[in-house]
């Protein structure tokens, strides 16, 4: 672990009886970085979060969060950590405001932070609403607000936008980015490759408990861009997909000179295509 790493994972493995959930995974996350764990259901994403948050012990390897080995994690570290899982609960009989107020008391946060965070997640006008009556999107925003009300140094997000409408997803993405910009290290699991591409500074593709590819989203895509191809649209409506060659270069040059070229796009693979190529399976 370097001085800067907020999360450090080395050769981590987890075995459940006859099933291997994680196999020798290693990665580091620094402050102000969004690290995405991309993989299909059952790949080992949630298991990794549980180990990193001290809710489960690894079978092998070492991991630390904020310099604390995960097996030594106690309640004190949670004062600097925020966690959102797909089954994080709310106090359904209490109002939106009261749901946050409890945690300001527990985490010793000023009450004025409640209104500030409610405005940021777009729930300020709903602050008196009973949590049990919120829509799925509003619940998820409230859960996220609760996880970040104490400005955590590390934020664990387990499929935070799963099942949410696109506008709520955009709002949540905006909040996650602003936290990253303020120095929070974000560990995000998702099986949504668009989300991973938009949000993550670094990614690890996880399959059957093993990291099969890692790097920035661009690095991963470009590393697998073996057959360079270009999608071209001409004025007369004709579309071509051409491989990189001297002939293609000449053609493009000719179309450009004649002002025939309307659009040109490189055809590097998407993260989903890379995942399919590397593992032979889809991300869902």
């Amino acid at each position, binding site marked *: 672990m370097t001085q800067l790493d907020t999360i450090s994972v080395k050769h981590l493995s987890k075995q459940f009886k006859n099933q291997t959930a994680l196999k020798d995974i290693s990665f580091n996350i620094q402050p102000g970085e969004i690290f995405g764990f991309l993989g299909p259901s059952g790949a080992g994403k949630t298991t990794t979060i549980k180990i990193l948050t001290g809710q489960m012990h690894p079978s092998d390897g070492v991991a630390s969060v904020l310099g604390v080995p995960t097996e030594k994690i106690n*309640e004190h570290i949670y004062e600097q950590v925020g*966690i959102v899982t797909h089954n*994080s609960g*709310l106090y*359904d*009989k*209490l109002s939106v405001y*009261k749901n946050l107020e*409890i945690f300001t*008391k527990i985490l010793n946060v000023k009450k004025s932070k409640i209104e500030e965070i409610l405005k940021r997640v777009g729930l300020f006008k709903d602050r008196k609403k009973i949590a049990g009556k919120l829509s799925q999107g509003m619940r998820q925003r409230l859960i996220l607000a609760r996880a970040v009300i104490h400005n955590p140094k590390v934020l664990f997000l387990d499929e935070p936008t799963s099942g949410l409408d696109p506008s709520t997803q955009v709002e949540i993405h905006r909040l996650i980015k602003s936290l990253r910009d303020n120095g929070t290290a974000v560990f995000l699991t998702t099986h949504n490759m668009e989300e991973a591409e938009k949000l993550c500074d670094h990614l690890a593709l996880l399959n059957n408990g093993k990291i099969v590819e890692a790097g920035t989203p661009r690095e991963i895509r470009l590393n697998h861009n073996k057959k360079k191809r270009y999608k071209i649209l001409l004025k007369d409506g004709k579309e071509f997909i051409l491989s990189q060659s001297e002939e293609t270069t000449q053609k493009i040059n000719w179309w450009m000179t004649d002002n025939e070229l309307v659009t040109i796009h490189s055809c590097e693979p998407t993260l989903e295509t890379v995942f399919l190529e590397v593992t032979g399976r889809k991300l869902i």
Partner: protein
Amino acid sequence: MNLSIRKINAILQLKLQSIITNLSIMVAPLLAIGFVLIMKMSMPKAVMTGAFLLSFGALFNSIMGGIMMGSYPLAEEKEKNTLRVLMTSSVNGAEFIIGSIIPSILMIILVNIILVPIAGIAMNKVNWPIYIIYTTLSGFISIMIGYIVGIYSKNQMQAGNISMPILLIFTMTPMFQMINKTIANIASFTYSGTIINFINDMITKKYSPSFKDITVLTIWTVLSVLIFIYAYTKHGLDSE
């Protein structure tokens, strides 16, 4: 394990609101008051003596209420996935238990005091220090039993299924005692039996704490705490 007064206070306030807004928890103290009132008004005084009414009400409140106040909120927190949120928000198990137990105990004490005039017993007839200590201890034992049930339950329905036979046995002790002397003798070794005998003696003659009563209550208290600690150490509050 460190204890934070701030966190205990936050849990206490949360639990107080939960208890007040959760009818399934409030049902026991409310029924205790309601049943005593109904029985007092509808049955002849010769049958429904003040001692019987108070022991029935106090048992209902301390035992049924205690077990429900222990098991239901813990099971509800697990069912709604809020317990894990608290535990991963820097609250430890001891802070959660202490913060949860205080409002329940206060509620039990308050209702046990209210039951005295409702049962038609003169205030000066009550040995208040012993009445409060005994009934509060029985409430505490019941809450511990409730927590043990809560630890082994995944949801409120399961908590209800497990706790129902336990709370019926202890709450119905006065009825069982009437069946025959052997059962009455066995019942006197239960914490509910001790409460009944104490209330009876306190109202009908002068009660002075006996070695047996103190021993029975102490053993039940220690046993319930030890079993709770064993269950907590083995499974935690929120085992998967």
